[in-house]
């Protein structure tokens, strides 16, 4: 079993309000902010590890987890972070963030799927910088594979022949069973203690959230292979279909008044805001 996990490097999402727009409005810069793996992609790595582990947190995988990113050379740091969690190897496809769109990234991933022949692609449901939520679905279409997006729970049989996915959708949860190969995109509850059931890993429950890299994991990750290639090597058309022509700052809300009593609050809501 081989699982491919696409990962995007993003500026620290907890400080997204500190990104800056260049004076001419053509660029967003995140200078001074830490770069991290996109949180949902980190969950995808965790999901892949949980699917393949032979025991809860054992780190012994019944297969291979390959982390792939499209970005600058320095994304090797975030790739190594994923390897330190327990993924086996990495692939960096060099590209400039400003010269990528979902179509290009999905086509790059499709070429890598052709080369790597994974049984599953597990990705985050969206990158928290662009917030587009497109690549996994586009990839599934290009490959002609079934898709299960916004996964809050995944169950696989012990022989890893299919995946039953509980999808978090408007108004509730939809359950689908996909034959492999397939694309799964993960939502936040996938990293809850019961997010993944592989019908093999018994014993204690998983902790809530993606695992932290152990010191041993970090040391090991330094020796794990990371291949580098270019988009041109893969023969993917690099013409942008979606261009961002300018960036602006949206209007901000400002602080209002502090009220002391419920009575005062109700009066304000009724007489001033007229919403009661």
């Amino acid at each position: 079993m081989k699982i491919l996990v696409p990962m995007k490097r993003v500026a620290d999402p907890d400080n997204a309000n500190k990104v800056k727009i260049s004076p001419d409005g053509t660029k967003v810069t995140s200078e001074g902010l830490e770069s991290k793996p996109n949180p949902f992609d980190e969950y995808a790595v965790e999901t892949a590890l949980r699917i393949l582990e032979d025991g809860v947190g054992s780190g012994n995988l019944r297969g291979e987890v390959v982390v792939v990113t499209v970005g600058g050379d320095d994304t090797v740091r975030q790739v190594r972070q994923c390897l330190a969690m327990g993924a086996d190897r990495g692939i960096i496809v060099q590209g400039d963030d400003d010269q990528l769109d979902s179509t290009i990234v999905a086509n790059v991933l499709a070429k890598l799927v052709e080369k790597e022949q994974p049984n599953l692609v597990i990705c985050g449901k969206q990158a928290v910088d662009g917030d587009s939520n497109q690549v996994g679905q586009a990839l599934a279409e290009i490959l002609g594979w079934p898709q299960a997006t916004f996964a809050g729970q995944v169950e696989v049989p012990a022989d890893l022949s299919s995946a039953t996915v509980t999808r978090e959708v408007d108004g509730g949860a939809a359950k689908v069973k996909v034959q492999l190969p397939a694309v799964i995109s993960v939502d936040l509850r996938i990293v809850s203690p019961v997010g993944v059931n592989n019908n093999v890993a018994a014993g204690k429950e998983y902790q809530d959230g993606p695992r932290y890299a152990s010191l041993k994991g970090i040391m090991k990750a330094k020796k794990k292979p990371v291949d580098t290639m270019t988009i041109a090597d893969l023969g993917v058309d690099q013409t942008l279909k979606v261009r961002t022509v300018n960036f602006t700052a949206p209007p901000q809300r400002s602080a209002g008044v502090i009220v002391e009593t419920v009575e005062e609050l109700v009066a304000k809501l009724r007489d001033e805001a007229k919403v009661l």
Partner: protein
Amino acid sequence: MSNVLVVANIADNEVKKAVLSTAAFAKTVSGYTGGSYDILAIGDDLSGVKDTLASLGAGKVMLAQGAELGTALAERLSPIIAQVATQGGYKVVVSAATSIAKDVFPRFAARIGAGMASEVVAVSNEGGKLTYVRPMYAGNVNGAVQIDSAVEVVTIRPTEFDAIEPGAAASAVEEVALPAAEAVCGKVEFLGFEKSVSNRPDLAEAAVVVSGGRGLKSKENFNIIEALADALSAAVGASRAAVDSGFIHNDFQVGQTGKIVAPDLYIAVGISGALQHVAGMKSAKTVVAINKDEEAPIFQIADYGMVGDLFKIIPELTEAVKKIKG
């Protein structure tokens, strides 16, 4: 000549406000492109909604219906939308950014080789080129994007567009001849839908939303949020922290990666106001924040703030509201 296609997924015989907002968007865009707009409705049974759909100012309404379409699997819907979009020669294909559209539209766009703009909040015509504004970086940056493909695929945030006023049921209505299901449909099986049980208004469309956060401390304590919501006929929402803590289902999460809401009144209870949460509710008209921590960032964006113990304030507020609403 119609050159904008609105795609509407219909369930439970209901045309939601999101569809009316999408039609309004289509009207604006078709004004720019010098044409009109059509509607493609998809669902298991559309007999109960076709008159409503025909009253939204569209050139024509196309119905794609069949028992198997109710499950809204992307593998089935994507070729249907592609067929209608291609045969009709539409320039723009748009849907509200519901979870169905978020699932299906990128697959459909890839199928027809189109570029796509997600969660658009405004549109303009810049020298003959449609330009879509969309929030990025958790709503801290607006990006204006242009699409360079024969068809432009768009999802919109319905909360950012006024609903179209329905008129007479004047649009022509026709049935879509469904293409046969493709092989990939045999590789995905729909097993069931578990509905989040709620008699309250739809979170995405409610006029009033009461949201709880980590400050509620437990799942059981969420009942004080529900009591206040019921007194206000409001929807219940939650911060990601509350969802992560297992207090409430993810379907109720308001924020960058959850639901985007824009009610007349938003009451944030025990929510610190992380920027990811604010991204989902900052378009609310009036925001009330109740939190024991006076330094909480939520107070920076609230019209009315109250610092104190929510377990005392909320029951008191609930009683006061009940008195007013009688």
